[in-house]
């Protein structure tokens, strides 16, 4: 059982808004008294009272609205005073902070000496306080609340807590019910069998029971919850988009590793970006287990750029001022069904190559560098899919037979978009292909784009292709030709809807 030292500042909400303890004053939140000074308490003001009632009892009551920000801000001064003497200060809430007692007790020569020293330090900093030491945070807080604070000896927590009334557990319903059952003190409550308490009052009741017995509900030192898979990066000073994208990549790798260890896959990813001006950009991304680290980084980049273009005036720095933190949370987890990506994933890329691709992706964006994937298809352009490095290949790869496939050899030049062309017959009129694939005249001249016409030395076709005729929106009907020209070039031409294109060149 760890020894905990607690520094407690009485009536902190009142202190934070600048009410002296000697003046009857109260802090109001939502029309009711949230805290009051001891002078006001002496006049009969209580927490939870309505302001009207409090003012009736104490006519010269100083009333201030509650200010949570000021509470947090000012308490940092207390925490700083404590951390002058001992590290690992955990602020439980404004007005209460805890430190593991063992270290300072050894260093300052006993728990009582450490307690007095810390109390003096905080009082010197200008704040009234009580300091208590006990087993566990709950007992230590109560020990700090005893006039001036006490040290509860090790193993004495249960005995120390026993006389306290049930109300200190801060569970009014439980206290009310137990009170009607005749259980009015923590000692009575602690004497009940733990199993029965858990059975009757559930998890929260069991937790309260543990507290009453002087057992720890949670450790004092902050440790990461094991079930929480959130990964986070903080930036100080605020980072710009490039740096954030890199951090996102690292975080995503971390996340994927954790998920893989647990045999789980993330279906949806929540990305939260905290900006210096206090904005938080939150968005959910569909993941499906197929987003690589780079693809995650890319989504973070999108999210950032979307914010920038949305922002009024497009004045980047003035509006968003940089990113201070980034958090990736797997939103929905499913058991991994085992998609095999080692054959194509990063593992197939050697170390130097992956470094180079990282640099290129930093320069040009995630889609900047691709790896080709050969698939089945008819045209030369349809048989190659370019997959950005780091992405997994698309899952739905078309499957054939492919009647009308263009035969080998494959062309050396395959433009991403077919180039317009003009094909004319010997009489200079454009060559037309009828629906029955009859050619109006043999092609005699080919002009690609703006270039001059070249004389055709050989041609073949038409090779008709009717694709997806069962799906009217995506249906295409084309007829392909191969031609060679006097200049030594060879083209794969296609005519579709009366227009000629160069699909590829056999340069």
């Amino acid at each position, binding site marked *: 059982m760890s020894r905990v030292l607690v520094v407690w500042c009485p009536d902190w909400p009142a202190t934070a808004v600048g009410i002296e303890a000697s003046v009857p004053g109260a802090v109001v939140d939502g029309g009711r008294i949230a805290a009051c000074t001891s002078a006001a308490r002496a006049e009969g003001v209580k927490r939870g009272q309505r302001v009207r009632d409090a003012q009736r009892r104490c006519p010269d009551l100083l009333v201030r609205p509650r200010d949570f920000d000021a509470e947090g801000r000012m308490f940092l001064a207390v925490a700083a005073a404590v951390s002058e003497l001992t590290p690992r200060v955990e602020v439980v809430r404004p007005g209460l902070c805890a430190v593991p007692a063992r270290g300072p007790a050894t260093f300052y020569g006993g728990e009582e000496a450490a307690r007095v020293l810390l109390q003096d330090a905080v009082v010197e900093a200008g704040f009234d306080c009580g300091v208590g030491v006990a087993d566990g945070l709950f007992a230590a807080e109560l020990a700090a609340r005893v006039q001036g604070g006490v040290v509860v000896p090790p193993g004495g927590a249960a005995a120390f807590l026993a006389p306290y009334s049930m109300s200190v557990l801060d569970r009014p319903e439980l206290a009310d019910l137990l009170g009607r059952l005749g259980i009015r003190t923590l000692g009575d409550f602690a004497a009940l069998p733990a199993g029965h308490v858990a059975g009757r009052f559930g998890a929260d009741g069991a937790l309260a029971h543990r507290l009453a017995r002087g057992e720890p509900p949670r450790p004092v030192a902050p440790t990461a919850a094991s079930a929480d898979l959130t990964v986070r990066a903080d930036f100080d000073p605020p980072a710009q988009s490039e740096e954030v994208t890199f951090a996102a990549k690292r975080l995503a790798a971390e996340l994927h590793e954790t998920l893989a260890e647990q045999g789980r896959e993330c279906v949806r990813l929540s990305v939260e970006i905290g900006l210096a001006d206090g904005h938080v950009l939150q968005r959910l991304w569909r993941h499906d287990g197929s987003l690589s680290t780079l693809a995650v980084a890319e989504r973070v980049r999108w999210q950032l750029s979307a914010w920038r273009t949305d922002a009024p005036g497009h004045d980047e720095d003035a509006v968003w001022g940089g990113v201070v933190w980034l958090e990736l949370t797997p939103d929905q987890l499913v058991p991994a069904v085992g998609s095999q990506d080692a054959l194509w994933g990063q593992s197939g890329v*050697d170390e*130097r*190559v992956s*470094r*180079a*691709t990282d*640099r*290129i992706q930093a*320069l*040009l964006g995630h889609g*900047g*560098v*691709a*790896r*080709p994937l*050969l698939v089945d298809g008819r045209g*030369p352009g349809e048989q*190659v899919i*370019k997959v950005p490095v780091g992405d997994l290949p698309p899952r739905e790869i078309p499957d054939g037979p492919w*009647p*009308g*496939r263009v*035969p*080998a*050899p*494959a*062309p*050396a*030049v*395959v*433009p*991403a978009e077919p180039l317009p062309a003009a094909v004319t017959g*010997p009489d200079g009129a454009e060559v037309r292909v009828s*629906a*029955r*694939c*009859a*050619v109006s005249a*043999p092609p*005699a001249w080919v002009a690609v784009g703006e270039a001059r016409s070249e004389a*055709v*030395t*050989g*041609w*073949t*076709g038409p*090779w*008709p292709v*009717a694709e997806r*005729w069962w799906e009217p929106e995506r249906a295409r*009907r084309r007829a392909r030709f*191969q*031609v*060679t020209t006097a*200049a*030594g070039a*060879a083209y794969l031409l296609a005519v579709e809807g009366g227009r000629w294109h160069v699909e590829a*060149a*056999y*340069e």
Partner: protein
Amino acid sequence: MADASAAPSLPPHAALRDQLVRAGAQGGQGVPVLPALRTLLPGGLRAGSVVGLDGSGAASLGVALVAGASADAGPQAESAPANGWSAVVGVPEFGVLAACGMGADPRRLLLVDDPAERWPDVVAALVEAVSLVLVRPPERPAPAVVRRLTALARKHGSVLTLTGPAVQTWPGIRLKLAVTESEWEGLGDGHGVLGGRRAHVVAQGHDAPGAGRREWLWLPNAEGKVEPAEAPRARTSGRPVLEVVPGVRSMPDARSGPDVRSGPDVRSGPDARSTAS
């Protein structure tokens, strides 16, 4: 096109440095080329050199060099620079399928289609990592960029292969490859299938001393491979020049469109008729 200016003069220290690099490269373990190109380029492409591709057959030559570099690199695959990877920068129309037909391994190929003005940085990143970079620089690259990339390629032993207009102005090109003559086979007048191309390939420059080496190659042959070809017997009269004969309609030839044969007769097929009506 490939004249005396193909071997531009370099400062004397560059030549010395080249010799040192050559001596230090363990007998010049170059970047491999396709077997058919070995008579033209014995020993492959010199590691760390700059190669220029010129003329109308540049695309096919580029595809063939990429195929050679990324074809199965054998047991020495792990050793730099011949790790069997290649990259294509700024050539979005690069025929990946053709490269694979010639023997390239698509899993060891990187494509940077649109580097725009960042191309020097992209190439600089790639020469450290891959055996061969095929790049089409803009017409007049800045001299500083040229020096930097040439030095990086030499340092890392990667072959920088240039295509496009910059080939004419880039200093220090060790080897120029060009197709001087070519003819395609297989197409008739309205029938046939494009087969191979017989191409006369010329290699010139420092790495091909003298008047350069010349070779007739199938670039590609009917299966899409590169193979040595015999010279056409009498090129002036060897093959009748095809003439356009007016009035001839497309003839239903068994050879026209090999895959059309396998299906039903498309010209009177159901969808053709429906569109006609």
